[in-house]
């Protein structure tokens, strides 16, 4: 509880919440405007069956992709100096003189910040999903909705663990650059793979993409999220929309085993971070 309260105070008092809220509202307003325009435009001849659902699905994926990027950048900027930054500016000196094991402090920081990131991700998810559900009349099974929501929140929590681990090794700025580039690489390789796969595929690119997603699985989680969303659309006689979403079409849907891997990956990241922080000299 102390860590949640402390992380909350930090996020509020550093005005991170204020800035993120204002920009989030702007983003959501723009998204809703675009969604309204797409779902309420006049159809010239006749509307294709499930056209609204397809458009809603595309908008939902577009919205969740950019929402995921917003959360990712929030995570990176808020946590890139969690360890190294606090060591550099002398904050850690008094803190580590207290009788608290370093691993507890490290995990406290992770779960404290993670709680607020999870909360923010949930709010953002609902702000994207609910308008699509209403305007595009997109029915969705509860189980799939929950899976989609959890996958949406899982990505930032993984990124938080990567960023925290990086901050135990790299200086603040270096860690921020490294994590942002890794995240960008993950996005790029996954979308590049989707586009190339649509034209027959490339084995080398698929291998590279797999390698990148092992280190930064955020976009693979997005693919799985897209898959779960499509699976959850509660309508009979729905055409195959798996390949109708352009770049959002999940070409290589990660298996449940991969999701299991991300859980183990997160635990490994936290364990490595605790170890690195324990052995770090606070000069």
């Amino acid at each position: 509880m102390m860590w949640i309260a402390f992380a909350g105070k930090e996020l509020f008092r550093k005005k991170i919440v204020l800035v993120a809220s204002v920009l989030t509202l702007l983003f959501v307003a723009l998204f809703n405007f675009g969604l309204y325009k797409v779902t309420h435009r006049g159809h010239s001849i006749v509307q294709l069956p499930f056209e609204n659902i397809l458009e809603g699905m595309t908008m939902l994926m577009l919205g969740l992709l950019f929402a995921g990027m917003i959360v990712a950048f929030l995570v990176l900027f808020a946590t890139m100096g969690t360890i190294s930054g606090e060591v550099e500016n002398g904050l850690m000196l008094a803190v580590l003189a207290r009788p608290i094991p370093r691993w507890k402090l490290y995990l406290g920081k992770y779960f404290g910040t993670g709680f607020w990131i999870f909360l923010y991700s949930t709010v953002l998810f609902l702000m994207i999903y609910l308008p699509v559900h209403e305007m595009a009349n997109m029915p969705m099974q509860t189980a799939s909705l929950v899976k989609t929501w959890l996958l949406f929140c899982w990505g930032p929590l993984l990124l938080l663990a990567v960023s925290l681990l990086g901050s135990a090794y790299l200086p603040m700025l270096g860690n921020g650059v490294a994590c942002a580039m890794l995240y960008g690489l993950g996005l790029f390789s996954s979308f590049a793979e989707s586009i190339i796969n649509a034209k027959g595929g490339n084995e080398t690119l698929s291998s590279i993409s797999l390698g990148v997603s092992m280190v930064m699985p955020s976009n693979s989680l997005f693919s799985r999220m897209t898959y779960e969303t499509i699976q959850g659309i509660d309508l009979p006689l729905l055409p195959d929309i798996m390949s109708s979403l352009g770049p959002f079409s999940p070409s290589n849907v990660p298996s449940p085993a991969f999701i299991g891997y991300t859980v183990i990956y997160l635990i490994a990241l936290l364990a490595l971070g605790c170890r690195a922080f324990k052995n770090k000299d606070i000069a």
Partner: protein
Amino acid sequence: MMLQTRGLTKTYASGTGCMDISLEIKEGQVFGLLGPNGAGKSTFVKMVIGLLTPDAGNGMLLGKPIGHPDSRRKLGYLPELFRFQEWLTGEEVLRYHAGLSGLKLSETRSSRMASRIKEVLRVTGLNDRGADRVRNYSKGMQQRLGIACALLMDPELIILDEPSSALDPVGRYEVRQLLERLRDEGKTVFLNTHLLEDVEAVCDEVAFLHLGKLRAVGSMRELLHAGTSWDITVGGWQPELAESVGRSLLPGMSLAAGIQEPDGSAVLRITAQNREQIGYLNRLLMEEGITLYEVKPVQGRLEEWFLSMSSAAAPSGAGSVEGGLRA
């Protein structure tokens, strides 16, 4: 024993750090660690606290191996170049540190903790600024908050790394008074400072570190008062008395007349081995009909000792003498 180190060593890639430091600090002692910049004092302190992992050696802090979290349970520490979370208020910083010390969130917000926080803020002169954000604190106020933080959990051992830096003369005076109060309360204090007057005023024992090595360790009396000087202001002095008084001095004592006024007032510079010899001189002067107005240690003698220790060529490996120069 509050702190005991054996051959504690930490060397950086640049070759600096500290080597083979063995020290013992007993309960109730006020211990001063002296040395010029870059001597390795802070490196030593950080190893003791557990911020740095020693390359060699070991130690016990409050009965636990150094580096173990439990060794810091009854420890208060003021780092040298530190900062607090500027987005917290002074009181919140203290509550946060109470939480880091093992108290539950509800306990950090209890009335008992609130009164303890009020107490340490009062002691450090921040009683009316506890609700202000740290970002609005001056450097001196942050230093005071650091001291408050070190005292918060009523520690048995208090390690203060340059406690008076960033403080104005009034603040320095108050810190010295605080140190004297802690000493009187029987607290064990480890003081790492450049302010020699603080050391002189409060320390029982000192150690001198230079180029990463321990050069001297012992009581203040042994290290500084052996063969040191006093200025004695007298009345009724006649220049010819210098010879007669000088003949009666004990071995190891010397007298030199300094300022001499026509009205008979004078300042005599006495070198003596100990305070008892000063008492003996007092009797001699009384017998000669001299009025004694003031006896005071020659200012800067610690400074002189410090400078002489710093400039002394000190080859290592020739053994050590407790209470004297390690060379």
